[in-house]
């Protein structure tokens, strides 16, 4: 390749150089190419890794994401005009330099090919990226369709815990998905041993409640389960007890495909709106919405963490013009004035309510320096207690009620040994603990001690944890206030859990009454500003005192309680809490973002603006981000939110809004026949490491009906009408997330990547030409030159010898 430097620079030949030839000379200069490559290197680096701002580049916070400051995603950074100009100049330079400096001959073929390959690749990329469409589509496995004789029909996606109702008045049915078994093995019939999708729906009908089991693909096996008296088996097959498969033939349930008609574009934003009651969302695309930074118009719109440096105020103005068709507000353009990248809606207590609703912020501090603040609401059973029930906040209607609290009973442990006719009522007075001494029960071998008396406030139960010894045997009993929940754990670690529920020793019976006097009681009322604290006698000598806001009070040795704020007429105010940057989970993406939508006040001649449902007029509302704009709650998939925001218009109409992504119609609807997990040796254990592959069996709606199932799995996409479908994400099994949640066995839906790929083959062709050129230049060219030189070398050698 060294010969290229020797090849004549065409720009320098000729005495008088025109502007054109100078320009040509400049743009065909190799040095320009080198300079452009350097700039490209720098541009790509700072856009990708960011700028290092610390010496220790291994620290994640050493890298300042410059790209995000410009509100550009990776994709956008590399399609920004400076990048495009750079690439265009480079291509121009390559073309001119090749044409003008490298004579096309056998020796230089490698450089020509390499450069030509790069140009072809660039052209292919222009085609590819300018027409690129990329998104994803969630497809649920089945929907449950309910039909009543009158022709009424209702449906919901089959998802654990999903509910819907059908019918009205006295003829209402409430349906709830009780359990889904993704791979249920058929136990009888011709297809015995095959596996299918089983959904058990709990039906509360007008006359009776029962469970209806539905099997995908086998409507003939649908059957009902009814309640029985046997506690071991609370539901039995109706066929057994009543002689027929279905106990209620009025309601008809079936499992149908749940086809998806849209896919949702990656990195896009859209506002969805509709009148309340309308079925379909109307989409208003949002262009140029920021994605990476917080844009606040006022600190009064959000909650800020106490330790957080407030971000600068910089409102934005992103217009959201009406959609072309079907927009419920066709004359109104909205605008987005604020954007939060990472926030959570939180309720906080503010003053100025119009009715009694005592609220207090209480700080508990201990000597070691640890402290915790609690916000309490006396009238809200969920938010009345703190410290696991050890602190309670009351509103006192009258003085006598206080007396009742003062005289409240201590917690009691009832012990009964029927065989020996022993009944004991022991108040739990001593401070329980791990080291507390055992108390013998006279006349028996039993000894016991109370280890702890926690309150599980979130479940609304209290219990005493009691260690029991009887001779050699020792075990721990969890004595609940609800005797049905009481159970024993064996003493040593290892195999204890396997001893099963129930009692180790049934001869001794214990029940627990939590009592009232154990807790700290903060008491407001009966006057608005009266606030008192009752301390249990075992903690302190002073048991009752008036509270001064802001003044710490010692409640027991080493612990103080301070009422930081007291509002007799508190109210809850919801605002987004701006999560401090260090606490933001980077894998969440846009999922925690929010926008503030400004609703121009309609010109009604009065002071009425938009109305946030019930209360005062509003001009703007916060809208949280949604991955998918589900049409209804009943279509929502597990792990995805459905939180539309309703606003009342001055004309009485109510409009729902949702902030999500842009959608495009799929060429034809797609349904999910089955979803399978293929596992490594040892089966699927719940860990991702045990999974070998995920497989969606898809059906597309063609003109002639549904196609046969087509498998899409990792690295094996399917093309259908110019779009490619990829296996992208799945529905893993999940334990219950809150009380009443049935948990999920997973596999109820798939998420498909959807994309086009125009020009990929041109890109590939370019790459191959370039590779061929490189190989030629490095390995073939020297050979050709050697052969050409060989005769000269031989002559030289002979001459020398």
């Amino acid at each position, binding site marked *: 390749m060294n010969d290229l430097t020797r090849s004549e620079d065409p720009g320098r030949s000729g005495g008088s150089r025109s502007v054109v030839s100078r320009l040509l000379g400049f743009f065909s200069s190799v*040095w320009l190419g080198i300079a452009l*490559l350097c700039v490209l290197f720098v541009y790509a680096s700072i856009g990708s890794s960011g700028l290092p701002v610390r010496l220790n580049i291994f620290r994640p916070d050493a890298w300042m994401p410059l790209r995000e400051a410009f509100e550009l995603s*990776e994709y956008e950074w*590399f399609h920004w005009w400076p990048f495009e100009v750079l690439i265009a100049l480079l291509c121009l330079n390559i073309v001119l330099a090749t044409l003008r400096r490298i004579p096309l001959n056998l020796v230089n073929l490698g450089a020509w090919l390499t450069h030509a390959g790069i140009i072809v690749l660039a052209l292919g990329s222009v085609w590819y990226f300018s027409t690129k469409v990329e998104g994803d589509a969630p497809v649920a496995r089945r929907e449950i369709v309910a039909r009543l004789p009158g022709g009424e029909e209702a449906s919901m996606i089959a998802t654990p815990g999903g509910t819907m109702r059908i019918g009205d008045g006295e003829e209402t049915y409430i349906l709830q998905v009780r359990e889904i078994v993704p791979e249920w093995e058929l136990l009888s019939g011709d297809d015995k041993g095959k596996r299918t999708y089983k959904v058990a729906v709990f039906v509360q009908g007008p006359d009776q409640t029962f469970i209806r089991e539905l099997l995908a693909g086998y409507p003939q096996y649908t059957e009902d389960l009814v309640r029985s008296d046997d506690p071991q088996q609370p539901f039995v097959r109706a066929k057994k007890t009543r002689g027929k498969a279905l106990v209620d033939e009025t309601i008809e349930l079936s499992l149908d495909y749940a086809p998806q008609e849209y896919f949702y574009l990656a990195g896009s934003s859209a506002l969805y709106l509709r009148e309340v009651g309308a079925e379909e969302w109307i989409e208003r695309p949002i262009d140029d919405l920021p994605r990476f930074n917080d844009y606040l118009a006022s600190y009064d719109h959000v909650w800020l963490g106490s330790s957080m440096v407030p971000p600068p105020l910089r409102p934005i103005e992103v217009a959201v013009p009406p959609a072309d068709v079907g927009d419920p507000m066709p004359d109104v353009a909205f605008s987005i004035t604020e954007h939060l990248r990472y926030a959570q809606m939180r309720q906080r207590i503010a003053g100025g309510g119009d009715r009694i609703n005592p609220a207090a912020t209480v700080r508990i501090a201990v000597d070691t320096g640890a402290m915790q603040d609690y916000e309490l609401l006396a009238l809200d059973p969920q938010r009345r207690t703190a410290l696991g029930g050890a602190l309670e906040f009351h509103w006192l209607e009258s003085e006598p009620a206080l007396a009742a609290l003062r005289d409240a009973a201590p917690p009691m442990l009832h012990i009964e040994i029927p065989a020996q006719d022993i009944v004991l009522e022991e108040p739990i007075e001593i401070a329980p603990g791990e080291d507390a001494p055992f108390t013998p029960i006279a006349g028996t071998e039993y000894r016991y001690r109370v280890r702890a008396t926690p309150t599980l406030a979130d479940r609304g139960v209290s219990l005493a944890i009691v260690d029991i010894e009887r001779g050699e045997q020792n075990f721990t009993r969890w004595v609940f206030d609800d005797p049905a929940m009481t159970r024993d754990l064996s003493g040593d670690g290892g195999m204890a859990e396997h001893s099963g529920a129930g009692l180790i020793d049934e001869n001794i019976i214990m029940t627990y009454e939590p009592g009232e006097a154990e807790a700290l009681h903060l008491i407001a009322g009966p006057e608005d500003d009266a606030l008192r604290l009752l301390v249990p006698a075992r903690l302190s000598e002073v048991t009752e005192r008036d509270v001064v806001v802001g003044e710490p009070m010692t409640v027991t040795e080493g612990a103080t309680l301070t009422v930081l704020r007291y509002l007799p007429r508190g109210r809850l105010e919801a605002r987004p809490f701006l999560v401090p940057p260090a606490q933001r989970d980077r894998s969440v993406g846009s999922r925690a973002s929010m926008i503030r939508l400004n609703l121009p006040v309609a010109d009604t001649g009065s002071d009425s603006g938009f109305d946030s449902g019930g209360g005062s007029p509003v001009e703007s509302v916060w809208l949280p981000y949604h991955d998918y704009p589900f049409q209804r709650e009943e279509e929502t998939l597990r792990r995805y939110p459905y939180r539309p925001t309703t606003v009342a218009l001055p004309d009485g109409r109510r409009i729902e809004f949702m902030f999500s992504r842009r959608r495009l119609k799929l060429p034809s609807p797609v349904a999910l026949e089955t979803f399978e997990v293929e596992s490594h040796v*040892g089966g699927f254990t719940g860990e991702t490491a045990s*999974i070998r592959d995920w497989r969606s069996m898809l059906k597309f709606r063609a003109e002639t009906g549904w196609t046969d199932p087509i498998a899409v799995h990792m690295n094996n996409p399917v093309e259908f009408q110019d779009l490619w479908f990829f296996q992208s994400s799945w529905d893993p099994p999940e334990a219950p997330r809150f009380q009443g949640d049935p948990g999920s066995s997973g596999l109820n839906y798939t998420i498909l990547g959807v994309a086009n790929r125009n020009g*990929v083959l041109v*890109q590939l062709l370019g790459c191959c030409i370039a590779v061929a050129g490189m190989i030629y230049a490095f390995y073939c060219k*020297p050979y050709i030159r050697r052969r050409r030189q060989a005769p000269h070398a031989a002559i030289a050698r002979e001459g020398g010898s």
Partner: protein
Amino acid sequence: MGARYAWLTIAVLTFLAAPVLGQPAPREGEGPAGARGNDEPSFAERVDLTAFGRLAVHSRGRVKSFDSFAASVMRAVTGSRSIDGQSDAFTYLDLMLRPGRYEDEDHIYVKNKLVRAAIAQTLAEPGIDAALSERLERFVKRGLISPSLLRAERVQAILARLSTDLMRSARYVDAVRNALAVRDASNLRQGLKLVAPPGGGAEERWYTLDELAMAGDTRPDLAAMPAELRQKLISAWIDFTNAWRRSDAVGVNATSAQLAALLPAVSPDPEVYPEHSRLAWESWYFRHGNMTWIWLIYAFSLVPLLLFVSFRWSAARWAGLLLFFAAFGFHTFAVMLRWYVSGRWPNANMFEAVTTAAWFGACFAVLFELFAQRSPMRGLFALGSAVASMTALMATKFYPLQLDPTIGNIMPVLHDVWLYIHTNVIIFSYALIFMAAVSALLYLVYRAGRSLRGADGTGEFARVGGAGSLIMTAPEGSSPLERARTTIGQVLDGTTMILIELSFILLWAGIVMGAIWADHSWGRPWGWDPKEVFALNTFIVFALLIHVRLQARDKGLWTAILAVIGCAVMLFNWIVINFTIAGLHSYA
């Protein structure tokens, strides 16, 4: 003159190797099983876990030997430190069966120095006794702390605070909490899935011996097991645990031999229960530190190779090549053994990528040294590859948490023929880039020496028109480097060019193959992911190199500088991008 340089080289290399040769044995303090003040062998020393270590355990979708399993579990607890020289297998069982002994024993590894300092500061309040303060000092230095100290309320409070900082400290706190959970005796018991599915079947689940003892009747597949075998297993297991709790080494050895004989009989199907030889080799491989000690042999080969390159002593060449080929032999054995044990080509995680890349480089060097013995560049490829392999294997030895040697399954998205080719081609090119940087650095040193003596080095470059001319069989004397007046500088530059040009093509081809794979795996051939961008950046540096070499007057100097920069960008991609700026490619 020459001899002085030679001795200087030897002195420097000996100095570099000294800390390794003189490494103190890692017996610090007294562990729970340590022989305290007498010469009697401890329980740990008398227990023989050879056969037990070769039992199959199911974990994370793979059936592995107990030794290998224990190594990866204990790595999550103790990091790279061993407790009092105990084997991982022993520590696993001891933590499980005698947890009390470890409650106040410093054995949980805290990786991050800032987290260590925060914990030590909370515990070091005025008035603590000297022993504790000494312990805390040791903790700040070595990173090991006991569960009882970690569970102190104040430490929990500081950990809770540190875990809210997702950017800086949360993952280290997570690691500590994970270590606490992993070392919990009941979790260790639940993880010990030693019983193969009695009914056979590769997709059926494995059981622990506890489950066999207690849930046998409720599980139909366990009920399928012959009653006699089951009874024997259960009683051997109970005897084993009891003997262990009594520190009865004889009893442990007898019952572990029983278990080792019985367990493989539960499901003799080789599809389910791996062959004995595979398990034995896996145990051997993990007991020998995944053979990362090979780096030492590579290091020793450097001395003679460097002497040969500088002074052309043929004895040094033979000594160097002998050591290098020996190291390569072990390295090949390690790669092949890992392939045999894991059942797939070892290129699925960072450990494998690094060791296999170095092996590719070594293969290339061996081929070159064998087939181009008369080339003036001989010895240089072995030298470059020795440096590359030494660095790679040292990294795996000294950073086992980042380069985790645990054998795992390939992620589902990586099952693809293009991907296999793509990753291997890319890591091969990376190895060549590293080797090129070695010869480029030598060139820079050489040029620096020349310029100190006032010589002009502009002509110190190989007159190549494509690297092919350097390796082509040619009439005597016609190769650009075989003329009589060829200097070391020209030879070094030629070596760099051969490596750069090959890696240039491989890198490009590798990126393209990655794009082909990404096109049908993620729906786009190119996603501007940081890892992709920096692979492209590496390529841009080499494109610059080739064009600067055309234009610049001092070709050799610029080639060497850009080769080093290219290697730096490649390493930046592999290290900083992977561990700090995670992208889609974070697996390797």
